[in-house]
């Protein structure tokens, strides 16, 4: 179980409205990712669901029951903090056992569950260490271990990987995804990392200033961004957004075209320009091109190694099937 409904949920800190009324439904077993720029209210929304903050208005319904004024301890949710928030004075074993102790489980049952969790997370050898004696990745696992032993209705993650180095992040990302596949428990995951959002989520919730800009699967958001904000936010490198006469030719205020949907040629094409910066990654090459009649540089992705350099002539042709058109309000035009 882990079906969470936010109805008209609102949050104000004093005079500042951080979350204007917002509705959201999270289905049982879903992996939902909250993304958005810094300060947009992702953590706040997560803490509202956790019960660590009161809502200013609206209702939170967990598994059919109104949980709006239920204290965090009794919502049946588990949270993994960005700082891990391990109990420094307890061994790994005691850390993982703590929620079970609070639930007044029997000793034998506690031991059994701690052992099982430790096995899943490769922590068996470290059970008697203190958190201070563990590496960042191991601490992260302990935090996750502490969350899974309770068999919660849903897991809440607040940027759990942001304190890890790049290599470890990739590993942990896979581990969390795997864990989700195995447990089939609802997970709500806050990040501002594109890749994490795209690879892990069943459903991405894009937030801006507390508003939900769009909800959908990663590919839906990639293919059909509802507005300019989502279009610019999802995808890496960013979608090219072009205003002016060229957009008008396509009957729109603004057109958007992703770098991977532009065909580049040194012979001829729709737009002519000169290469300003070229980034050779080996598998791909990115060109930043200054085009005639387009004020912003256009980014293009070309597969493999292409030998073009600063100042070389280049012709670009957008793929018409992947052209996004937006109106004066910034909304997508079908």
């Amino acid at each position: 179980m882990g079906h969470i409904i936010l109805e008209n949920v609102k949050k104000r800190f004093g005079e500042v409205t951080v979350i204007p009324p917002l509705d959201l439904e999270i289905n049982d077993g879903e992996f939902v990712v909250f993304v958005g720029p810094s300060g947009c209210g992702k953590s706040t929304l997560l803490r509202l669901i956790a019960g660590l903050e009161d809502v200013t208005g609206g209702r939170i319904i967990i598994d059919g029951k109104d949980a709006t004024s239920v204290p965090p301890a009794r919502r049946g949710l588990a949270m993994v903090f960005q700082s891990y928030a391990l109990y420094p004075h307890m061994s790994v074993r005691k850390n993982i056992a703590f929620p079970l102790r609070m639930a007044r489980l029997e000793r034998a049952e506690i031991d059994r569950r701690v052992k099982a969790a430790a096995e899943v997370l490769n922590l068996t050898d470290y059970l008697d260490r203190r958190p201070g004696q563990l590496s960042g990745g191991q601490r992260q696992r302990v935090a996750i271990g502490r969350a899974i032993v309770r068999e919660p209705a849903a897991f809440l993650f607040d940027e759990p990987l942001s304190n890890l180095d790049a290599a470890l992040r990739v590993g942990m990302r896979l581990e969390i995804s795997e864990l989700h596949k195995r447990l089939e428990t609802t997970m709500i995951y806050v990040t501002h990392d594109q890749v994490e959002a795209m690879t892990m989520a069943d459903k991405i919730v894009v937030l801006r200033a507390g508003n939900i800009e769009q909800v959908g699967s990663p590919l839906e958001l990639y293919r059909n961004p509802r507005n300019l904000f989502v279009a610019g936010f999802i995808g890496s490198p960013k979608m090219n957004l072009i205003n002016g006469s060229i957009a008008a030719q396509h009957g729109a205020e603004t057109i958007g075209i992703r770098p991977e949907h532009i065909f580049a040629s040194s012979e001829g094409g729709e737009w002519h320009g000169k290469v300003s910066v070229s980034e050779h990654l080996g598998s791909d090459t990115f060109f930043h091109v200054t085009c005639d009649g387009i004020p912003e540089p256009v980014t293009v992705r070309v597969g493999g190694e292409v030998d073009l350099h600063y100042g070389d002539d280049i012709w670009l042709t957008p793929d018409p099937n992947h052209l996004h058109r937006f109106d004066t309000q910034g909304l997508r035009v079908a």
Partner: protein
Amino acid sequence: MATQHSRSAARLMLAPAVVLLLGWMLVPLTLTLYLSFKKYLPLRGDSLQNGLEWVGFENYARFISSSAFWPSVQATLIIVGGVLLITVVLGVLLAILLDQPIWGQGIVRLFVIAPFFVMPTVSALVWKNMLMDPINGIFAHLWRFFGATPVSWLSDASVQSIILIVSWQWLPFATLILLTAIQSLDSEQLEAAEMDGASPLARFFYIVLPHLSRAITIVILIQTIFLLSIFAEIFVTTGGSFGTRTLTYLIFQRVVDSQNIGLGSAGGVYAIILANIVAIFLMRIVGKNLDR
């Protein structure tokens, strides 16, 4: 940062401390204030049961105009000022000394701070007898050794003696705080100044001393509050005679010895006002610190 739940829990858990301190402050304060407007001499038959005579500000006027008042203010100022001067100046020097690399630094530190942990009655008695006794004290031995006549410290140099005793007790406090502050001084600053050609003396006055100014202010304020109410040191040594009757001691005598409660209470109100003036400055500094 919290839920309604935790906010009301917080209020509940804060309540005992607040209520206790509120009672501790308000009840005696109100009583003192009340008594300061009354004629209350228990030895002459006044009693709370029979009701006390309201005398307005007479006690306040009498307390100030009594012949003992100005000398007591003077004694208070001299003792507090003297102790502050000695402890701050020596404290800065000692702190700098202890900050240098020396062998056995830890042990020297223990020696230096030890007096702070000696209870006031003990230190007063030890100084009075073991050191300052005109016949058998160490000072008397020392004076005789050099062919001088021993001094009756607590009668002939009473105020200086009290200053000496109290300074000995408080020097550790000043030193320890100033040492802590010095240790937080960024050594790169000093090195930069040295590169700029500043002499050691210049470095002391332009870098070390300004860095210590906040700590010095705190030492002065906190010590002032404690020094204004020193009691045991005088009680045990001179009993307030030989010009060592401070404001605190004068009030104590009015209340306890001469049993003039009204007059003593008026004095108490003066003392409270005085302490509050110092306290306001202290709170400014501490309060600023809270924001960080």
